């Protein structure tokens, strides 16, 4: 295992400190609870948004803390859900009297830990806490026989769009409804060119041959739908977009999100973006907004995911709203 780290046990804490040090104007770190908070808290009377999950997906979630997006992010161990105490601390810190929305990726551990945090908060402070569970990964097929679809790329879009709604002053019901709508209208799928190596494990989580790719992977090295030989990027794009399009609800233009897994350079992501444009044009799907880059990663995995979000006027306006976070910034 070759990584720029100091000690396997300190990876999360060191990275959190580095992140806070690198963005002193944007972020404050509650080191005890491993919670990144906005350096300038939101004004009173606004709905607050928190998220979190296992580490190893940077910039998600800490990189999305800031004006127009999250109020706090809770960092678990690498690929391990944070514990309720962390979310409770985050909720207490960000509550501005209008309630708190938790954005939770659909993994059993995450769902239960956030749920307990909400119970804790309700019991201790009376803060109204809602949760939206993101589950946009179409690679999980039989969701009745599984823990359900996983939350992946769509989570970033939920955080941005619901964040904008909260910033505008919408109430907890509205912000929750918007987050729910974004999740319902988003579908994703990913591909791995190489495995991920978890620092504490020290070896690749799965083996892929020199000419193999794994299609439909999760963001924790979970297995995919099928293994295939290496194919051109356009075929990769097709294998991701076909199942996405088959399950994408609604009509009209989409937001195209081409996301890198951490080990794939921008050059390749832009090639994949071009291929996605061509395929969507053939399919008669208009693209009205885009995001291309490394936003929800899986440590050092080489690979990419594509997310489509079926926009509407309101979601488009909220997507366009100003945002100022370490990883996503526009208009501020």
């Amino acid at each position, binding site marked *: 295992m070759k990584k720029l780290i100091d000690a396997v046990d300190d990876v999360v804490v060191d990275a959190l400190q580095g992140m806070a040090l690198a963005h002193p104007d944007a972020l404050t770190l509650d080191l005890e609870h491993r919670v990144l908070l906005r350096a300038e808290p939101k004004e009173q009377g606004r709905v607050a948004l928190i998220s979190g999950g296992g580490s190893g997906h940077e910039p998600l979630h800490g990189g999305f803390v800031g004006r127009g997006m999250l109020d706090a992010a809770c960092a678990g161990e690498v*690929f391990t859900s944070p514990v309720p105490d962390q979310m409770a601390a985050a909720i207490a810190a960000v509550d501005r009297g209008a309630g708190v929305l938790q954005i939770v990726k659909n993994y059993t551990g995450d769902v239960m830990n956030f749920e307990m945090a909400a119970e804790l908060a309700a019991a201790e402070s009376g803060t109204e806490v809602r949760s939206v569970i993101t589950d946009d990964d179409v690679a999980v097929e039989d969701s009745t026989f599984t823990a359900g679809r996983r939350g992946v790329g769509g989570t970033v879009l939920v955080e941005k769009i619901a964040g904008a709604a909260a910033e505008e002053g919408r109430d907890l019901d509205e912000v929750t409804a918007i987050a729910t709508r974004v999740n319902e209208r988003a579908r994703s799928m990913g591909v791995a060119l190489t495995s991920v190596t978890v620092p504490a494990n020290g070896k690749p989580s799965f083996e892929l041959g020199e000419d193999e790719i794994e299609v439909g992977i999760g963001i924790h090295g979970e297995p995919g739908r099928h293994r295939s030989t290496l194919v051109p990027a356009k075929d990769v794009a097709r294998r991701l977009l076909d199942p996405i399009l088959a399950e994408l609800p609604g009509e009209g233009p989409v937001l195209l999100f081409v996301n890198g897994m951490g080990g794939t350079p921008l050059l390749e992501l832009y090639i994949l973006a071009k291929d996605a444009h061509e395929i969507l044009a053939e399919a008669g799907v208009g693209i009205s907004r885009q995001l291309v880059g490394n936003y929800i990663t899986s440590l050092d995995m080489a690979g990419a995911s594509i997310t489509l979000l079926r926009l509407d006027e309101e979601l488009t306006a909220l997507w366009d709203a100003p945002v100022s976070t370490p990883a996503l910034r526009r208009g501020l």
Partner: protein
Amino acid sequence: MTTTALTTTELEDWLRRAAALLTDHAAELTELDAAIGDADHGSNMSRGFRAVVEALDAGDFADPAALLKKTGMTLVSTVGGASGPLYGTLFLRLAGATGGAASLDAAALGEALAAGVQGVADRGKAAPGEKTMLDAWTPALEAFRGAGDDLAAAVAAGAAAAAQGRDDTAPMTATKGRASYLGERSVGHVDPGAASTVLLWQALADAVSGEAGR
């Protein structure tokens, strides 16, 4: 020296024995989790029970409820993942069910365990047969309650049934937790949470029978 009822002393003994067993078997549990999950169950459980031992070292507990509540809270606060809330809820429900009793005999422990296992099912929205820790807890609870009033005998029966339940998870297809993404490919592997459940029962049996050398 066998025990007929558990006071804070025996409960503490149980938990310290459990911590030792989980640490000794951490690599094994992680190996099981690597096959059908994300290779962290051993480190999750040993991290959690290390923290429980620290809490026991630091604390002074008025009754079983206080000790079990502290254990549950500690697990919730340090384990994370799926097993943290599940084992945490189990101990919190155990605590809730004991009321202010100073000791738990077989009947009282049976009541408490029933509440605890129900807590796991509630928290995990799971049922037996889905290849989770419930597949060890459920038969263990039944065997325990069916074994009568002798605490040592009941715990031994529970431990044996837990082990059988763990082994029975191998042919199951997972439909809950991370292993469910594997579908059919989860068949043939023992569930890691069922395996850690067996270690808890083993520690309890050792504590009740006064087995030496934890």
